[in-house]
């Protein structure tokens, strides 16, 4: 039961990522794409955490943590670039 739920969750996340990538491809402006990236990184954190659960290894969570830092950084950098703040 729990496994089935997890699988369902995984598929949903999968679709979420797919939509995000689709937006990335379609995105009219760079901001759209960056927003998609922002979303995708957060989803990726979930994904990694989920995989940590599946694999039963807590060490993968550290990667998720790095992701948290880094996604923020990249998005902020692009935003600052776009508003001519670099």
């Amino acid at each position, binding site marked *: 039961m729990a496994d089935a739920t997890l699988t369902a969750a995984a598929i949903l996340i999968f679709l979420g990522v797919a939509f995000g990538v689709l937006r990335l491809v379609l995105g009219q402006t760079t901001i759209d794409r960056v927003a998609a990236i922002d979303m995708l990184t957060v989803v990726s954190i979930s994904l990694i955490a989920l995989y940590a659960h599946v694999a039963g290894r807590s060490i993968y969570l550290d990667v998720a943590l*790095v992701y948290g830092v880094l996604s923020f950084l990249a998005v*902020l950098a692009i935003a*600052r670039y776009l508003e001519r*703040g*670099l």
Partner: protein
Amino acid sequence: MIRRHSIIVAIVSLGLVFASLVIGYTEQQAARPLAESYIRLVPQELGAPNVITGILLTYRAFDTLGEIAVLFMVAASVGLVLGREGPPRGVPSEDRPGEARPSSEIVQTGTQILVPLISIFAAYIIMNGHLTAGGGFQGGAVIASGILLVLLAYPQYQPNLEFLGITESVAGALFVLAGIAGLIVADGFLDNRILPLGQFGAFFSAGAIPVLSALLGIKVGCELSVILERFRP
């Protein structure tokens, strides 16, 4: 047009070469002998649960040393190329053309709050290099991210390049010194067993790996920060 065609031909041919690789490749069903002995040796001889860190900081520490030399040289090269070497910019930031737009208060406050957290997190990654994923490089990159965050939020902020440079040099020299210590005390250059291995899996264990990791992290962090600073408009 000819050019484009020839590019296509080249790429396609390379693709064929690659295809042969993919077709010829079979997934590894068990670790290769060398890998297997690494997995056995690193916990046993180096006392490091993280085999990768063990390899990076002891068996292949020479590579790692080379790698920090690479980063170090990139910092110097970028300085040479972009003409920013030596004393930091004496020009007041107001005089520079095309002044950057200041960031919003939210970003600035957020940065101030986040940077200490990122730093402690970097410290965590560095110090736990031998236990969990991560280590000097990753932690160093996170340190650099913290500094980068400051640079992004405060375009006028001048990091103390002199301090960074000195820290970097000292850390690098200490790293080499630790290597020499391995030569004198333990079995060879860059041997981590200059310190007791400690209890397997404990925070202070795996000999000098945490120390090396810390030095590496500091050095990489400083180097990356210097590189970033040199790239700033």
